[in-house]
């Protein structure tokens, strides 16, 4: 058992040392993704936290046919590359500040629909709240997300 206790102590030491040497170390206490995103946004913008509107599939399909609406895929890039709604851009929750530098999001009055994988995935709502906080005025969430879009047989892009 002595070796295992030594390994525990060494892991503790290595964990603390490597974390302190990181460019962005983990804080001592965990913050959930939404708190992290809101903290990132609040340090860079005047924050107005609002709840985004939830849209069903028919409304989303109508919006997709109107090419002025921008679709934002909030899933991780690996999922996005497997397939996404045509013309959508990828903006995962931990990259929310990239929104400030994306040409597609330069017009804050442009309608935006954010989606994630399915109804249980919170990332769509998190990213939508972040975009609202960054000053975008028309941000909605496609509640059914990618699963509902793919199941409907609608066009997809890889």
């Amino acid at each position, binding site marked *: *058992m002595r*070796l*295992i206790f030594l*390994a525990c102590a060494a*892991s503790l030491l290595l964990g603390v040392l490597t974390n302190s040497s990181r460019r962005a170390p*983990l804080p001592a206490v*965990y913050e959930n993704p939404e708190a992290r995103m809101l903290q990132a946004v609040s340090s860079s913008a005047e924050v107005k936290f609002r709840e985004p509107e939830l849209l069903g599939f028919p409304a989303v399909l109508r919006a997709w046919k109107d090419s002025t609406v921008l679709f934002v895929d909030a899933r991780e890039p*690996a999922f996005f590359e497997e397939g996404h709604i045509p013309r959508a851009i990828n903006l995962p929750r*931990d990259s929310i500040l990239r929104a400030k530098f994306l040409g597609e999001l330069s017009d804050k009055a442009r309608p935006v629909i954010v989606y994630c994988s399915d109804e249980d995935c919170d990332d769509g709502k998190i990213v939508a709240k972040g975009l609202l906080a960054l000053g975008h005025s028309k941000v909605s969430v496609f509640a059914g997300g990618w699963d509902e879009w793919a199941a409907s047989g609608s066009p997809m892009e890889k």
Partner: protein
Amino acid sequence: MGGLGLTNGKMIPRILVSLVFLVAGLLKVRDPLAFADGIAGFHAFPVWAINPLAMCVPWFEILTGTGILVGRTRSAGALAACGLSVCFVVLYASALARGLDVQCACFGKWDLLQASTRVGLVRALVLLGFSAWVYWRACPTGRATPKEWRAAA
């Protein structure tokens, strides 16, 4: 390979278990935030424990994987692997019982594409089986007695 004690065909499970822990540990060390989110997804730990676990568990896995590979420490490494595997099984079983869909990022973000709670539980059970086998083989008599389970580590 003699110094590592890897001299016969029975070493394959040992190398497999070792590699699983080494790869899982290294991927988590690279992305501790994803692992912290994964731990939080189990809803089994207090908030103050999540980040310390995300910092330290990957290193414990790396040391476990290395320990299994090195001849002199393989029984301790295998015992640690059994302990970790039991923890994984309990966590996944409890998540499954509570109807949670957990993606632990145990093998980095790549894992998010593949894993579900059920897959995670099966994977943890397989890992436990292999780890127990490696420990059983690592004991001097070739079969672990309760005394050896305690003493060999």
